[in-house]
C-alpha cells in the first residue's frame, strides 16, 4: 500500500480527518476536531499504525494555536504518519491518548510542563524536568529565555566584537 492509498483510506474512514500524502512514504493528517483525537488515533492505529514514535507540540504564536503532533509509524506498510491537532493557545486542552498508547503518558507530562497544554484524563501531569518552576512554561515562544537567565542567574552578554 502506498502513502496515497493510505491517505485516501484515512480521509475516507474518519470524517474529521484531512489526510495529505507527502513525498516518499509520508502522510500528513490534520485533525479537524481535537476533542475526538483519541478516537481518531484509535482508528488510524487499527489501519496498521501500531507504533507511536513521538508526541510533541508546536507553538504558532502569530496564529494563536498549538499543534499537538503525533508521529506514527506502520511496520506493516512502512508508512510514517504525522497527525496534527490544532488547539487554542489561550486555553490549551486536549483529551489524552493514553488509552490508545499507554506510553503517551510521559510525553504528555513533558508537553504539559514545557508548553502548558492540559491533557484531560492524564492522571499524572506533575513536574518532570524543571525544579520549582513558577514562570510561564519555558518552551512557549513568548517566553524570553535570555531575560529569564539574566534575571534569575545573573547572566551577562559579552560585548560584540
Amino acid at each position, binding site marked *: 500500500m502506498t502513502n496515497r492509498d493510505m491517505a485516501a483510506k484515512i480521509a475516507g474512514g474518519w470524517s474529521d480527518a484531512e489526510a495529505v500524502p507527502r513525498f516518499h512514504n509520508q502522510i500528513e493528517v490534520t485533525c479537524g476536531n481535537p476533542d475526538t483525537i483519541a478516537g481518531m488515533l484509535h482508528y488510524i492505529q487499527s489501519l496498521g499504525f501500531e507504533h507511536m514514535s513521538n508526541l510533541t507540540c508546536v507553538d504558532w504564536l502569530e496564529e494563536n494555536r498549538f499543534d499537538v503532533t503525533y508521529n506514527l509509524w506502520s511496520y506493516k506498510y512502512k508508512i510514517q504518519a504525522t497527525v496534527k491537532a490544532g488547539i487554542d493557545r489561550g486555553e490549551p486542552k486536549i483529551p489524552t491518548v493514553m488509552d490508545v498508547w499507554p506510553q503517551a503518558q510521559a510525553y504528555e507530562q513533558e508537553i504539559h510542563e514545557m508548553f502548558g497544554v492540559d491533557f484531560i484524563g492524564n492522571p499524572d501531569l506533575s513536574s518532570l524536568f*524543571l525544579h520549582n518552576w513558577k*514562570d510561564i512554561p519555558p518552551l512557549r515562544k513568548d517566553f*524570553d*529565555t535570555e531575560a529569564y537567565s539574566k534575571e534569575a542567574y545573573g547572566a551577562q552578554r559579552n560585548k560584540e566584537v
Partner: protein
Amino acid sequence: MLKISREEIIDGKFERVLNFFRSRSLWMLYYCTGCGAVELPPTMTSRFDMERFGISPMATPRQADILLVTGYVSVKTLKRIVYSYEQMPEPKWVVGFGSCPVNGGIYWNSYATINQLDKYIPVDISIPGCMPRPQAVIDGLLSLMDSIKKGEAVGYKKYRMNNDWYKKNQREILERTKPVLGGKK
C-alpha cells in the same frame, strides 16, 4: 558580598606541612553533569595517566577530596552538587571543568542552567575550554596541587565562613517562591 577575603584565610605554617602530603594524594569525585565527562577516560587511562600525579577517581563523596563538576549545571543538578559537596569531609576542593561552570558557556542564556557555579559553592580552580583537552585537565589539576601546597586553595574555609552568603544564593535558585519574569503559570 563575601565578608572574608581569600587572603585572610590562607593556611598557616603547620597546615602547609599537612598540605604538602595532601596535595600528593587526591581522590577525585567526578560529578559528570555535562559533556565534559568524555575527556576524563583518556585523562585517567594510560595515554595521559592522571594517576602518576597521585590523582585517582573515588566513588563516594565521603572519601573524596576533589569535587569535579564537568559541564553545565542545571538547577536540579545544583541541588545534588550541594548535597555531594556538603557530604565531603574537609579539606575539600572544587574544580570547575569547562566553560559552563565559569559563565554558562554556550548555555549562558538557557532557562535551565545556572551561570556561575562560584556563587553557590566555592570553586578553587576553573579549567576553561569547551571541552578542555586532557593536557589542560592535567595542567589544571597540577595548578590545584600547587595552590594546595602554597595553602591558597581554601575554598572549604570560605564556604564555612561565608555560609550565609552561599546559602542565600542557593535558596534564591532552589526555593523560589514567585515568578522571575512576573508572568502567570
